[in-house]
């Protein structure tokens, strides 16, 4: 229920820079996600919001109020730590109840709330267990319950579901989202799971090596990545380099080598691309968008590798000098093997133009 603003935040550890020049405006009630490779500074940034690190430079404000140096316990946050940080000397119940006791609620209210939270994370009946007697996922759920139960203004979640199975993860995710929407808690979420990020977030910040790459809604980030990094980091993407052969009206034709010409739509391009004949350009093509069989932008290839993933079958297809990842929904039809020929087509409106790499 509070907005969060980070202004030109930089954080150094000794001489090494963990994050640099971060600017974010998280709206009140927004679900905001940090996404990025391991070690890119997600936890560091989150900890600065929580108040456990002081930015080397820059300012942090909640609701326009500068809280850069305010103590963590005065920020009314709820946090799930990446390492859980459960109190080993307390039981599950005591762990979850801790924040409520701090808030001096009555015994009966605490019991009620804790029980509700236990239900929420599917740990009913585990109240008296010691932390050592829980499985990894159960520990993570205790950590989650402990942060949620205090209904904070701002919820900071550092990979809160990483040790849960897909089913529970999905259910918990939906529940968190519901809670967040119902209570309007501003939430900052760190995850390495894009699917999760996409499904839950209002906006996503993609980071790499301590720097912001793009901030936007899931669809913007997915469909209109600002740069190579974002395109390849978010979901899988085939990135081809080519030279623009022809620009007509709304259509662009690109030569990607080996005599292969691909036709796309002009408006599907990131802001800074120079679309003109003979310019070098990068094309991003999502594997799932490629179809099997003839159609627009038909090409021939040979299967290099086959991978079955349940929902889909993934092929690595060799086309000239390029290798394309192709994802075909598993419809029970037979699976092609390495060496088989395949005909693919790429819908025109699903080619996205970005400026050349580097």
């Amino acid at each position, binding site marked *: 229920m509070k907005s969060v603003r980070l202004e030109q935040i930089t954080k150094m550890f000794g001489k090494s820079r963990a994050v640099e020049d971060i600017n974010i405006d998280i709206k009140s009630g927004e679900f905001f996600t940090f996404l990025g490779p391991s070690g890119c500074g997600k*936890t560091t940034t989150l*900890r600065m919001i*929580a*108040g*456990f*690190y*002081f930015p080397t430079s820059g300012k942090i404000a909640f609701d326009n109020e500068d809280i850069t*140096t305010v*103590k*963590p*316990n005065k920020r*009314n*946050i*709820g*946090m799930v*730590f*990446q*390492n*859980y*940080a*459960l*109190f*080993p*000397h*307390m039981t599950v119940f005591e762990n979850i109840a*801790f*924040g409520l006791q*701090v*808030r001096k609620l009555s015994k009966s209210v605490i019991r009620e709330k804790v029980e509700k939270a236990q239900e929420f994370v599917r740990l009913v009946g585990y109240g008296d267990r*010691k*932390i*050592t007697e829980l499985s*990894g996922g159960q*520990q993570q759920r205790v950590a989650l319950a*402990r*942060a949620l139960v*205090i209904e904070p203004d701002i919820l*900071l979640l550092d990979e809160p579901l990483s040790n849960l199975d897909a089913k529970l993860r999905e259910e918990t995710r939906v529940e968190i989202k519901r809670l967040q929407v119902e209570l309007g808690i501003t939430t900052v979420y760190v995850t390495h799971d894009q699917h999760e990020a996409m499904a839950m977030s209002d906006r996503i910040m993609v980071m790499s090596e301590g720097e912001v790459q793009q901030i936007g809604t899931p669809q913007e980030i997915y469909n209109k990545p600002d740069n190579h990094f974002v395109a390849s980091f978010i979901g899988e993407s085939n990135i081809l380099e080519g030279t623009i052969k022809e620009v007509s009206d709304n259509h662009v034709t690109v030569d990607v080598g080996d005599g292969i010409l691909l036709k796309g739509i002009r408006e599907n391009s990131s802001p800074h691309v120079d679309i003109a004949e003979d310019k070098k350009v990068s094309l991003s093509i999502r594997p799932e968008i490629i179809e099997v069989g003839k159609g627009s932008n038909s090409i021939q290839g040979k299967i290099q590798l086959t991978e079955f993933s349940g929902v889909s079958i993934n092929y690595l297809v060799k086309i000239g000098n390029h290798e394309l990842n192709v994802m075909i929904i598993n419809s029970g039809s037979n699976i092609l093997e390495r060496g088989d020929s395949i005909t693919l087509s790429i819908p025109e409106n699903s080619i996205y133009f970005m400026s050349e790499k580097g």
Partner: protein
Amino acid sequence: MTSEAIAPKKSIWAKITQSKYFVYVLISPLVLVLLAYVIYPMYKTFSQSVMDQEGALSFSNYINFFTTEANLESLRNSVFISVVSVITCAIVGVAMAFLLNRYEFPGRKFLSVLVLVPMALPPLIGAISFYFLYGETGIFPRFFQQIFNLEEVPFSLEGIWGIIMVHTFTMYTYFYLSASAAIKGLDLSLEEAATSLGSGRLRIWTKIILPMLTPAMVASSLLVFMISMASYTAPLMFGVQRTMTMQITLSRTNGNLDMSATQSTVLSIVSIAFLILMTWYQNRRNYQNQSKGTGVHRTEVRSPIVRYLAVLLSIIGVVVLMLPIMVIALISFAVDGSWTTQIIPAAYTIQHYVELFTDPDTWGPIWNSIQMSTVAVIGNIIFGVAAAYAMVRFNFKGKAFMDILIMVPWALPGTVVAVNMISAFSEPSAFAFNQVLVGTFWILPLAYFVRQLPLVFRNSQASLIQMDQSVEEAAQSLGATWWHSFRRVVLPIIMPGILAGTLLAFVQGLTEFVASILIYTPSTMPLSVGIWNKMYSFEFGTACAYGVLQTILIVIVLLVNEKIKGDNDTGAAF
């Protein structure tokens, strides 16, 4: 492979090692040692207390004990003094531990050595220095009397509160050291988690930090409680007759050995009861670090006020704690008899040091003490750590009993321990390889070993309880033998605890007096007896100068310890 050939052999060995009785094989040497050096003499004392002159079973001594008001009052006093000492030592020790371990500031290392120096206070002169500081004619009372122009001194330290004061000033190190070790092993993210849940410093302390320090606190509480119960010099110095130790001495002086055995037994029973209570308390909860991954991030202190406050408090604390030592140094430079009604001595000299350094007998006791303490401490480390490991990692019958075995010598007055040792080893016994130990070099290190074993044992145990066991498993999964993983993984992780215990034990060995005086031989005269001799012949200044030498020796030990610790640190706080 050749698994065919080795399979049967392996399985026999495996059968043995995996048997649930194997742990008994492991702990048997320790049990033997304890049987010989603790149980056997203890049993003699006990049987003496329940036997009448004819050797028949009789509780008349106990009936006698519990119907004598003097005994009961002594028991009450001793328990009261011990409980309060535990509390005051805990406050001082833990507070100093936090100030000096949590905040980084220039000179922190130096202060953290100084804060341990009071440990070096020689028991005899140490007692007197308190008198010089806070006694009726002490520096402080006289100082305040003068500046406020009072008729009488405004305050002075006496009686039971005097004892408690002395205990606090000399025993807080038990808390300081074990708390410091525990703080190093404490996962900071727990505190952060509590903070993020909105809790303030106070609650973090009472609900997270102190509870998580429980193993360390229990260890030091036990040590302080027991040594307070067994404390002799402090009651002597404040003339409080009604404590258990004084009563025991009195009984012995009067030749009433049955009563003294009874009193000793009652004393150890009280200490054992406290031990059981604390163990029960500790076992109610789990203290193993349980986070995923290692305690990653460290809290930063930004607020300069907090930091300056920490610096200031540290300095004040260290200075106050150092005062008794400084007084001894002061006296060692004062002309004997020159300090009468003044606040501080009027005339100074280096004569005492000249005397000391020109006396060829000065260095012998120092060298003896170093040797004997070293021998004892090596034994302490081997057996103390092994016992702690067995107690924490294995589950076996008689665990609680072994705990008691190890702790008891600490709980008995030094005189009683020494007398036990004499009677156990004045004849050839199997436990001493058929040798008479009395009158040899070995009896003193042995006494030190038995008495100080709890120091290393308890502190190592506290560290082990906090250590995440899966780290050890990881080492095994990588193929490390038990010994390898113990050496390379367990030991380094619990090293702060071991070092704390070792330091205490070593310093204790260098300063031990009450037992030493009864069993030393001319060729093994320890330093403390040397000092006592000077005192006894009223060479007070020289005794203090000798005490200063002892203090310097201990400071050297502290510095060495700090060096080892420094090499071992997994990173100090911001």
